[in-house]
């Protein structure tokens, strides 16, 4: 995808971004504020999925514990708020630092393993974080943590209202898309992609793949953590439930259904998933059954994702 506006799929992407940009206006016009909520949440999860795709789709690192960073980011809003610290810059910095540190430490251990070991160890680490927060009575544990005000930023960039928070989310989305787009085409990105295909080969070409992958892992974690900050502000109710490993499974599903190793794919995946979740739960409270069945069918009978389908438009 060299030039976004040239290809047909590129036009669809741009069109979609445009629509997302003016969404609040559309919703106001059609008097459906509920949809703004839905979309806000969808985009936050979309950013998390994009961050996961960086390591999973492009890098081949199948992490089953990525939502831990979403949770950490959210608690980086919740815990300071608990102590009446509402400064948004502090929330953001705290999220970046804690996610980077946690990713550095757990990544350093996890990335020494591969295949099945790697998947399980990432899941185990995220469970660890989940249980830690679950056992911290002070911050609500199972009952969760409620915050009463959003992260404070200068007036011109505040996130007080639903619309202003939406534009924060949209802004992070655009930044993430652009950043990942540049990253995967850079030298660094080529190493990551090469390591996914043949790690041994890359090492024999002189690349210390461990270091590159760890860096990529940390970057991905930080992006997810930033999404977590927005999530914390959005829900204002922060609980460990956000970080159970089954949520990581959902995140992986979004990346797969959207199309791995593609830029916009995970975004489609996240939006589709949430749409599906809403639609199915209107039909039955047992929507998990349908969803699980769909998942199984999807894997057994066909893959490629939405993005691959879109790319077929190019041919």
């Amino acid at each position, binding site marked *: 995808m060299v030039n976004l506006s040239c290809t047909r799929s590129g036009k669809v992407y741009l069109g979609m971004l445009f629509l997302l940009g003016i969404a609040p206006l559309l919703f106001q016009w059609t008097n459906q504020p509920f949809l703004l909520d839905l979309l806000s949440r969808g985009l936050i999860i979309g950013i998390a999925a994009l961050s996961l795709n960086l390591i999973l789709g492009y890098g081949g690192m199948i992490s089953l514990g990525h939502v831990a960073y979403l949770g950490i980011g959210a608690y980086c809003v919740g815990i300071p708020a608990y102590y009446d610290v509402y400064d948004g810059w502090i929330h953001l910095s705290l999220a970046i630092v804690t996610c980077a540190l946690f990713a550095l430490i757990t990544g350093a251990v996890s990335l020494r393993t591969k295949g099945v070991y790697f998947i399980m160890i990432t899941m185990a680490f995220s469970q660890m974080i989940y249980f830690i927060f679950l056992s911290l009575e002070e911050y609500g544990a199972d009952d969760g943590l409620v915050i009463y005000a959003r992260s404070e930023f200068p007036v011109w960039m505040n996130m007080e209202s639903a619309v202003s928070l939406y534009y924060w989310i949209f802004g992070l989305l655009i930044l993430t898309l652009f950043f990942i787009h*540049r990253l995967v085409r850079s030298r*660094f990105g*080529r*190493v990551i992609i090469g390591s996914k295909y043949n790690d*041994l080969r890359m090492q*024999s070409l002189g690349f210390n793949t461990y270091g590159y992958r760890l860096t990529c892992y940390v970057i991905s974690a930080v992006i997810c953590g930033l999404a977590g900050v927005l999530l914390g502000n959005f829900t204002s109710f922060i609980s460990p439930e956000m970080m159970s490993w089954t949520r990581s499974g959902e995140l992986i599903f979004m990346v797969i259904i959207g199309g791995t190793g593609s830029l916009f794919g995970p975004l489609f995946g996240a939006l589709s998933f949430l749409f599906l979740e809403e639609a199915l739960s209107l039909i039955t409270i047992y929507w998990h059954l349908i969803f699980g069945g769909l998942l199984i069918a999807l894997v057994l009978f066909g893959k490629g994702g939405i993005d691959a389908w879109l790319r077929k438009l190019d041919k």
Partner: protein
Amino acid sequence: MTQTMRADSVLSIKSLCKNFGGIKATDDVSLSVSRGGIHAVIGPNGAGKTTLIAQLSGQITPDSGDIEFDGRSILRAGMAQRARAGLARSFQITSVFLEMTILENAMLAVQGAQGHSYRFWAPTHKDQGLADIAMDHLMTVGLHHRSGRIVSSISHGEQRQLEVAMALAMQPQMLLLDEPMAGMGKEETFRMIEILSLVGAEKTILMVEHDMDAVFSLADQLSVLVNGRVIATDSVAQIRSNPEVQKSYLGDSCA
């Protein structure tokens, strides 16, 4: 079977041993490759040739012995380190990146030789300098006119040529080639022999190979590996007339 360690030997293997659960894959192997030469290692299947290359490139750790490259021991160095130190390897089973183009493959190899790749911003496909260097190496193996092809769509022989190009792109002092002619037809083999003799004029090569034609026309020195042991190391002519070698190896598949 003593090999005098000459002052200009690029690679010195000293009493290398590797056991796999009772089987001696590498049994006290010592040999020395002098600078600028092409040293071939031949032997029947299962002799331990690939295991030897794997230990030299750093993929497997030997149980005992030492490996000296350019006068320094590289025993503790990892694969990436050895590659950066100037020891390039090609693989017996083609390990090029199938989903990328020929040019992208070569550019990746050049990139590896150009210091660290912690550059997050500039797109590589716009990096003309990188592309130019890559094209040079592709030209050496004759793939430059096909540079835009996806590797999965080119022939096996061309993929092997790309393997060599990528090894060259690393600007190595020495090449470790694991059966470069593997799976090639007559014409492709011919072309590869041409390429390798060109390369061999400038670089030191240690080559594991089955194809006797190639070996006899390219190599200066031959080592014969049987059951993990080097039973003879000498010039091509001497090896051909060595009765022990004929008995254990050449005798059955006479060139």
